[in-house]
Structures are given as structure tokens and as C-alpha cells.
């Protein structure tokens, strides 16, 4: 599909109602993410098997090997964003991140059983992921018409999730075919990752290929100052604040799955399928949620998405029958990701200064990620001190408060027309 569409001009857009095409660059970025996610999820899926059965390590050792700390990842992401913004080097910086991750598979292959090298390779993979995220999202922002950003991010996230679902399947098929040759999984993952880098090099536009801003877009003052200079814009500042607030009230998925398992007395065999269910819902709803965000303005899906998470917490507290709770929580969790993950980026994009997109998006992502880590720690602490029910009630209250604050704080999309972005009918142009 990327082959068929990248030959088309991706800007300026030629909108024809809702049937406008997703820009070729976004499809190219989505394809790179899909291929890269197949590559990285292949490794992630077999790594525990390899370390525990192949090398005879204990589970705790596995935890120690698990690469970079959260703080280091956050720093790398901010640096990746800021560096990419200097002279519009999104393609170079992002490509470096993809290449680093692909090369890390080679490191796993050559490490043999040496745990120090394995830890190094896993760290390099994380480093690569941290570096590339912000430049890639900035490229999506730069190459999509502002009124279609929600759909662009939705498309990208759906393709990304597809790769994440395919990777483990590919890895286990390989293990089955080779009677547990873990090195074959690493080798194939390296080849798939290399393909991703190549697609990035060939089909992702570099500097100088930026489309002209469509009419009505805010004029771009030249970017000045450090990474935090963007925070002077009040709209952007509020988004960062809300990302942090909402993130701080989001308990980790693993806690929700654990609660589901306890609540339903679910057989452990089914435990790994819970995240799959949520991912499938995310995959299906990412594009519709993005389109809806383009129509309604992006703050509403973001708020409703967190509302879905709020309902999921509530559902876990109700005495409803088990299967209903299970289905409900998984659907709501998928809906939460569909309505917030890409939409937050789409909301942020138009508030960013020209030439500062990668750094700006990186800061929002980092604020959210760090806040979520804090939330997980706090949730675990409340659980330990007063039990899971109390922890869930506390999380529910915190999230409700955060959503209320965000509803007041979140800015509307900038653009022509009162009350936010006009619908596609009003922005329609005929050639």
C-alpha cells in the first residue's frame, strides 16, 4: 500500500469530504512502524524463554537485564526531539533511532550467553525507541493537513499496533519451526528491522520536502530559545500540564489485568490474552476515533477516552457478572487508547511553533510517561497499605478529578471559526 501511495503528492491536500486520502508520508511512517514493531515484538516475546530456558537465568536476573531506566528513556526522548528540531533533521535523528534498534538484534545474536552484552543490546534497543518517537510523530504532524491530524495519528497507531500483534506470532512460528532456535528469531528480527530502516530511508521525506502550510494556518514565527521555550505558549503549556495530570491518574494496565484476574479468578492460561483483547479494540477504533477528533475537536475524544478508563475502573468495583466485567474492561481500555494515544499528539500538533514540533511532542510524551510511572508507584503503595479495593477507589477519584481539571484546562484546537475547528463540510474545497 505504501508503494501505491507514496508516488502521490501528499501536500497540499485535495480534500473531498471524508474520503480524502491519508497522506503518503503517514502511510510510509505507519509501514515503517509496523515492520519495526514486528521486529521488536518478536524479540520481546521470546526473550523470557531465551533467558530462562536457553540460558538458565532466573526471573529476577531477567528483570535486571531489562535495559534503561525510566529517567534515562525520558532524557533520551527529549534530546531526540530537540536534536531533530535543529535544522529539521527529523529523518536523520529518527533513522538513527531505527538503525540503533535494528543493530541491537545483531548485538543479541553476537552476545551468545554473555549477560553484560545482552543488557547492552536491550539498552540500545530502548535508546533507539526513545530517540525515534518524537521525530516520527513530528513528521506525521508536518506532513498532514492540520484538520486531518487525528486521522493521520489514528492510522499510524493502528498500523503500529498491527505490527505489535504480528510480531509474537511470527516469533513463536519460528521457534516451532526450528525446535527453539532462539538465534534464528534474533536473526530474522534483525532482517525485518533492517527492512524497516530501509523503508524509512527510501520513503520518508527528508529536509526540504515539507509541504507548504495550507491557507489559514497560523503564521510561523522563527523558533528561538531552548527546549522549554515552547512552554511560553499558554495553549501548549496547558496541554503539557493536562498530559501530566491525566497520566498521574492512570494506573498501569498490568494492575488492571491483575485486578481482572483476581476478580474473575481467571485461569492464568488466559492472562496473556487480556492485553491482546485491548490491543485489538485499540487497533479497530484508532482510525474512527481520530476522524471523530478531527470533526469534534480533539479535546473531547481525549476527555471521553479518559472517561472510558474511568468507567473501566468503576466496572471493576461493581458486582456485575465476571464475563461482562472482563469484556467491558477490555473494550473500555482499548477505547481509552484509541481516543487518547494519537489524539493527544493531534491536539498538541497545531499548538506547536514551526520548527519545534519534535521537541514539543517529546515533552508532552515525557510528561505523560513520567506521570504514569509515578501513578503506578503510588497505586502499588496504596494497594500494599490498604488493599486493592481502596487503591482502585483512590484511582477512580484521582482520575475523575484529573478529567474535571483537564476539561477546564485543555485548549480548543486553534483555527478559524468559533468553538474550535470547523467540520469537514465547511473546510471542503473543490478542485
Amino acid at each position, binding site marked *: 500500500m505504501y*508503494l501505491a501511495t*507514496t508516488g*502521490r503528492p*501528499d501536500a497540499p491536500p485535495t480534500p473531498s469530504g471524508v474520503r480524502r486520502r491519508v497522506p503518503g508520508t503517514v502511510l510510509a511512517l505507519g509501514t515503517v512502524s509496523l515492520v519495526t514493531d514486528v521486529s521488536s*515484538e518478536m524479540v520481546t*516475546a521470546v526473550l523470557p*524463554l531465551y533467558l*530462562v*530456558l536457553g540460558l*538458565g537465568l*532466573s*526471573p*529476577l*536476573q531477567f528483570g*535486571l*537485564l531489562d535495559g534503561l531506566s525510566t529517567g534515562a528513556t525520558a532524557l533520551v526522548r527529549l534530546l531526540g526531539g530537540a536534536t531533530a528540531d535543529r535544522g529539521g533533521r527529523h529523518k536523520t535523528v529518527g533513522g538513527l533511532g531505527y538503525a540503533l534498534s535494528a543493530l541491537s538484534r545483531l548485538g543479541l545474536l553476537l552476545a551468545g*550467553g554473555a*549477560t*553484560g552484552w*545482552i*543488557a547492552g543490546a536491550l539498552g540500545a534497543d530502548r535508546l533507539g525507541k526513545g530517540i525515534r518517537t518524537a521525530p516520527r510523530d513530528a513528521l506525521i504532524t508536518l506532513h498532514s493537513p492540520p484538520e486531518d491530524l487525528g486521522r493521520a495519528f489514528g492510522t499510524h497507531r493502528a498500523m503500529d499496533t498491527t505490527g*505489535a500483534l504480528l*510480531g*509474537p*506470532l511470527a516469533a*513463536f512460528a519460528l521457534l516451532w*519451526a*526450528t*525446535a527453539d*532456535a532462539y*538465534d*534464528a528469531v534474533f*536473526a*530474522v528480527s534483525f*532482517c*525485518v528491522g533492517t527492512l524497516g530502516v*530501509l*523503508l524509512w530511508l*527510501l*520513503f520518508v*521525506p*527528508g529536509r*526540504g*520536502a515539507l509541504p507548504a502550510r495550507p491557507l489559514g494556518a497560523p503564521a510561523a514565527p522563527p523558533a528561538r530559545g531552548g527546549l522549554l521555550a515552547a512552554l511560553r505558549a499558554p495553549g501548549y503549556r496547558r496541554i503539557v500540564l493536562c498530559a501530566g495530570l491525566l497520566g498521574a491518574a492512570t494506573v498501569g*494496565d*498490568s494492575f488492571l489485568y*491483575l485486578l481482572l484476574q483476581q476478580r474473575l479468578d481467571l485461569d*492464568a*492460561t488466559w*492472562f*496473556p*490474552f*487480556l*492485553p*491482546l483483547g485491548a*490491543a485489538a479494540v485499540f487497533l479497530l477504533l484508532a482510525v474512527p476515533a481520530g476522524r471523530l477528533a478531527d470533526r469534534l475537536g480533539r479535546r473531547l475524544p481525549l476527555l471521553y477516552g479518559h472517561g472510558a478508563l474511568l468507567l473501566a475502573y468503576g466496572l471493576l468495583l461493581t458486582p456485575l457478572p465476571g464475563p461482562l466485567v472482563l469484556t467491558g474492561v477490555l473494550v473500555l481500555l482499548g477505547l481509552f487508547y484509541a481516543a487518547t494515544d494519537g489524539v493527544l499528539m493531534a491536539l498538541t500538533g497545531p499548538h506547536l511553533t514551526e520548527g519545534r514540533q519534535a521537541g514539543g511532542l517529546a515533552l508532552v510524551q515525557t510528561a505523560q510517561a513520567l506521570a504514569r510511572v509515578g501513578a503506578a508507584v503510588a497505586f*502499588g503503595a496504596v*494497594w*500494599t497499605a490498604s488493599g*486493592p479495593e481502596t487503591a482502585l477507589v483512590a484511582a477512580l477519584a484521582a482520575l475523575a478529578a484529573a478529567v474535571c481539571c483537564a476539561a477546564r484546562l485543555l485548549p480548543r484546537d486553534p483555527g478559524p471559526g468559533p468553538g474550535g475547528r470547523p467540520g469537514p463540510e465547511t473546510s471542503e474545497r473543490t478542485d
Partner: protein
Amino acid sequence: MPLPTGASTRTRVWIVVLALLLLGGGATAYTLRAAAGREADTTRTADPGFVLTGGPGTLYARDTATGRVARLDRAAPGGRTAGGPACDRFHAAGGTALCLRRRPGVPARSYVIVLDRQLREVRRMALPGIPSRARVSASGNMLAWTMFATGDSYARSSFSTRTSILDLRTGYLVKNIEQIPLTLGGRRHHAPDVNYWGVSFAADDNRFYATVSTGGRTHLVEGDMAAWSARALRENVECPSLSPDGTRLAFKKRVSDGPREPWRLYVYDLASGREHPVAERRGIDDQALWTDGETLAYGYGGGVWSVPADGTGTPRQLAAGASSPAVPG
């Protein structure tokens, strides 16, 4: 439209086709080469006549090359007779053998296979997870095993283990001992991150020792099956292994936070509360086995080694290309 790389679309498509051929060919070649000679049958049962005997002190272990349980025997070719069942983890004592075998497929699942002295299958259960530890009590009545329960990419935030206990006398199975009331620091402890692993039974088949991990620390716990309770005794003790006389625990002690060789093998005297390192100075990541009252056996670097428990002597390799040592007695 400005072309991203200056090349025409046709050129770029051809580059991708060529790369697909090259990378696909490379991946296929590597996979075929890796698959060749790996036809090891992972469903093998014990050969007729291969049983859990051979005199006191006879050492059994998993043979890495065949994946089967082997009896170490200097006279045999290769120093071993690999005629046992195929297992990923193995332990045997008191006429009972415990074999953990991973099943292919996604998500990771394993068979827990209980065998008698003739290595005939007595019981088989399919449980989720990757085999990590297996232990049989000295009497052969109590079985415990630990499965590593993260095998999927979607819950990567932390690992988790699932430790089960099976009483062969009653057939009673505790699938996950996480629910056992745990006292830590004098208080009943509730936490979402409680994980148990590495069980070792006392001679009464009721008391047991294990590792519990919570809040980023590991503790030695003493459990009581009949009272169904557990209490933490001290910190930084993993994979305890009780000596045959019940006075000492061999265990893994965490000595560094880095990923390289973070553990050393120690012995802890239960009466005095004193601990001492053994003469093995390398990083050991295994639940040690008491081969007699004074000697420990453990896996290191793909082989089985042994060292005196009192801190004297030097490590000695018992078998290369082997793991999961057991002395069925």
C-alpha cells in the same frame, strides 16, 4: 512533488524488492541452518530399564545435548547415560521425579509431569508459564515448582512467577501460593507485586522455605502448609535449599545491582543466624542442591559443579553440558 531521496519511485520500489529478496533470503538461510540438526524430540519418555536407582549418591542431571535426563556414570561413553524423559527442569528424591517440560506454542505453557521410581508417568498437568525451578521433598511426597509467567510482550512492566505445591499423599494442588497469608516485619503484608520462587521442604513435609519478592526486595520466608501461613525471616535470600539435617540453608545472595553476575552462593546457619560464602567465587544463578550433608551442586556456565558447603575447598566440575542436578538417593 519533491522526492524524498532524489530517486524516482520506480527506483525506490526496485531497491525495496531487491532488499526484500536479500533480507528474506538471508533470514530463510539462517533459519534453515539453525533448524538443521535440531530435530531433538521433546516428547521423549524414559527408555525401558532407565530408572531412578544406581546406589546412593548417584547423580542425575539434564543432558543439554539431548534435553533428556541422564545418569552420570564415569564408565559410560560421554560420562553419562541419557536415557530419561525429556525435561527442561528436573528434580528427584525419595522415589519421586518431577519433570517440567515446555510445550511449543503461544502463549508459553508447560507440562508438569510426576514420575515414579521407574520413571513411569504418574500425573501430568498443563500449566501456563516457563519452567524455572523444580523441587521434590526428601520423602518424595511434596512437590514444588516455579513457573516464570511473563512470556508475552504486552505486560512487560515487570516479571512475575507462579509457584505451585502438590501434595502427592492427598493429591492436593495449590496452583499459586501467592495467596498464603504472609507476615513481613511483624505485619500482615498485602501487595500486588508479591512473587514466590525457589521452594525447599523440611523433612516433616510441612515446613518449607522459599523466596518472596515484594517492593523490589527479596526475603527468605518460612512457610507452614498445615497452618497455611508464611513469615519473612530476613532479607536478600534467594532460592533457599535446606540441608539434609535441616540446620543450614544454601542460598543465592545478591552482591551487586549490575546485570553481570549479581549473585554469590552462601550458606546460612538457621540456629546461629550466621552466614558464610562458599569457595565458589563466580556468579551463581541456581537453586543449589545438597548432594550429601557437606557438599553443594549447582549449575554454572552450562555445566554442573560442586563445592564444599563449609567455605573450604575449590569448585569442581561434575559434568559439562548439563543442568538440573539431582540425587534421587
